[in-house]
């Protein structure tokens, strides 16, 4: 067992973990942050996307110990109580959420994009989300939602 010190959603966490634990399993199983879903366990679907130091990262592909000393944001850390992030709001209002299993990862990837490029083009949005699979929506309303956040910021 190894000691992991990490900041998650602004809160300092210290935990004794099996060094083989992936970040996704640590968040989901140990900390009960079940918003970070396991979709495939091999980095191919994007359901488990979180932000590490602001960057979108597939948390099933890295070990929890690899984020030692770093700052991690999960979907649970995006809203403050009932105040939602503009990306979350846009997903809800545009009907971009159906089964919702991909939504957390999709929103975290979108958030990472918006921080880097607050007014992306449609092609930039599609490129940024191309590693996040969704089966319900055909991505149409998801792309629309992300673009609407950029538009609001331009106004």
């Amino acid at each position, binding site marked *: 067992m190894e000691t992991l010190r990490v900041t998650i959603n602004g809160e300092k966490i210290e935990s004794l973990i099996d060094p083989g634990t992936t970040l996704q399993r640590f968040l989901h199983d140990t900390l009960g942050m079940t918003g970070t879903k396991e979709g495939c366990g091999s980095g191919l679907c994007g359901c488990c996307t979180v932000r590490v130091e602001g960057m979108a990262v597939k948390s099933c592909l890295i070990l929890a110990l690899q984020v030692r000393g770093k700052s991690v944001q999960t979907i649970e850390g995006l809203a403050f109580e009932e105040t939602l992030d503009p990306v979350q709001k846009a997903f809800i209002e545009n009907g971009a959420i159906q089964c919702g299993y991909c939504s957390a990862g999709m929103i975290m990837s979108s958030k990472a994009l918006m921080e880097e490029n607050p007014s992306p083009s449609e092609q930039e949005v599609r490129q940024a989300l191309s590693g996040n699979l969704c089966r*319900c929506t055909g991505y149409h309303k998801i792309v629309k939602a992300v673009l609407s956040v950029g538009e609001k910021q331009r106004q």
Partner: protein
Amino acid sequence: MNSEKAYQYIGKSENNVNAVAKATGRAKYCSDMQLSGMLYGKVKRSPYPHARIVSIDTTAAAHLPGVKVVIVGDEKTCPLRFGAGIADEYVLARDKVLYVGDPVAAVAAESEDIAQAAVDLIEVEYEELPTVFDGEEAFKRNPPAILHEDLKRYKTLRSVPPKFDENRPNVFNYFRIRRNDAEEGFKASDLVFENRFETAMIHHVQMESHCGVAMVDDTGRLLVWGTSSKPYGMHRDIAESRDLPLSTVRVIIPTHVGGSFGGRDPKAEQIAASLALAQKGYPKRPVKMKFTREEHLSTTTSRAHYIVDIKTGVKKDGTIVANKMRLLLVGGAYAGTGYLTARNAAFGPAANYRIENFNLDAYGVYTNQRMAGSYRGFGNAESLWGMESQMDIIAEALNMDPLELRLKNCIDEGDLNAFQETMHSVGAKECLHAAAEAIEWGKKTQGKQPHLKRGKGIALGNKYSIAPSASAAIIKVHPDGLVELRTSTVDLGQGSSTIFSQMIAEEFKIPVSKVRVLNPDTDITPFDLGTASSRSTFNMGNAIIKASTDAKRQLFELAAKELEANENDLETADSRVFVKGSPERSIPIKDLFIPMVIGGYTLKEGAEIIGKATYYLPGVMPDPETGASEKPAAFYMYVAQSAEVEVDTQTGKIRIIKIATANDCGKAINPMMVEGQQEGGVLSMGIGSTLLEEVITDNGVMLNPQFADYKIPTTLDCPDLMNYKSAIIETAHRDGPWGAKGVGEGTMVCTSPAIANAIYDAIGIRFHDIPITPEKVLTALKDKKSTTTRGADGLPFRP
């Protein structure tokens, strides 16, 4: 039937009632469940497609530290077979395995890793048996392998029984339509066309893998949580396969399930239940059985490889005189919902066009692959793939516009379909016009370079909804005015909870936020046939209206005394009851209840305000000889789709330039959600099944059971926002709640032919099987012809 008037909540694009929970990561799915003392299950699966189990040695596995229980398919664990219409499947294989991945043993242990290590220690000795993968081979009178020797002795469903074939031992269902004589029709035709079309085996790819959690409670009762779309079907399967009284099993489906699209066979739940029950002594610990992505893609229900033979006779003016089809569903090792798919794939062709002479034979056959069952469209995307490709072949031969040919023959209000049922609520023509307009039908565009060839295509489709059918709803009015719906419809992402909330909001004139929809729980929520066949809005919607009426009647009875009014003169809105026309004579719902000493509220009699109702739709079983029925289905959703494609003749790559869909849903209760169904159906599953997706197998082993190799569309495979168009056509149905029918399943029933017809228009090559991959395009361009060749293993054509 409701009169036309302004509705407050019906027809409005309300936000999904579950969206906040999902957007914030708070929504819990079955696969998120953790219970105190939980064990984790893993499955030992067959490496052979067909083999006798000689022996299973679980000694080493059982002795591994951390292992709680090991089970095999024996009399104790799996006394009886189960299945949607044919009880042909054990929870764990007994005696023989029928496909690569057939579960033979399972382990529950302290962790998934320990369970997997134990599974690896289980030794199984097999004796290989002859195999059959090819549908035509399996269909033969003397097939190379017979999967279910005892088929005729299996228990079958009484209400919609399967029909076996005396001479063909692998046929698990046969259905026929004989409207007049197609052969006579061909004689009277000017031209006759005969073709074969095929579709590859594909997978639903729900983002949440199949998952079950089971435990035995302190009274010995079995509780099972799962991801099933049919709580009561799963309830029956779990109880009957163990010979348990139904009431000793409780099935709960969490509020959130990560997609279904027809493919939620309850195998994970079944194995979890067996592992929970098999533990010796008390406490019996809860067991979670979540399939890995690889297990999910390679062993759970798929959409079948389908073989569609179609022969059509037409007059020179384009009138379709006769149509004859043979549909063959290559069904895999167990029938599952495929037993019904095999029959119901006939419905789409039967209801697309007016055809006097229509003969059809539909079969499902067993093969040594995983089960092929229902998949969005229920066989009709496959049968219509044939019919709608055939229509373009005919149009070209007649030198007719493919749109004109369809408009000339498409079925309309009052026409007879092939079942000789009089059609009602048919939006086919409006859909065709809308789809054509959306891509500027008739206007040819050019690629930027000579090797980029462009073309346009169109197709018509329809999707019936199942009959017989039943949905029950219970509506409770709480003292604080909140209205609670108890329904066993599963919100799989399609948004049923939102649609139902809007319906109740409309009935009680309260905001959607004052409605709560409970998750399915067989102890609490009443019967529903299942979240399938695009049936929820229509069937549960009708049950909700009836149950609301019942609940309001009770409210009005109570309020009538208080308001000194006749109960027939009362209305409710904003959690009050008032006299129609005199809103000042009103009483808050909470004042109808009596606050009690110590706490709580009561009624003097009747316990609670509980409205309840069943919407039962018997239908009429088609005649076994002719298929004739005046009511074989609840309703039909019409759809037309169109596409413009660009084929790169150097690389074979097909780019969707434009794609459009028009869907007749009767009435859009929530237009934003109808759009969501259209987008998912066309852009993800429609484009995916046509251009990308295919389960590739070798001797029954799936070669691409990961997202790296089984490709579903990504953001980059879908056309840009401006190049996708959708239209909602509202052809009200006389029996529909507010005129509504459904939408989900109709959204991809003709995407493939629309795209393939566009490809033909671009490069003059007719593809007879999907997916149409760049390799197939390049090979066909080289040979200047298409191919339907498939290898013996159902392997797709490879250049």
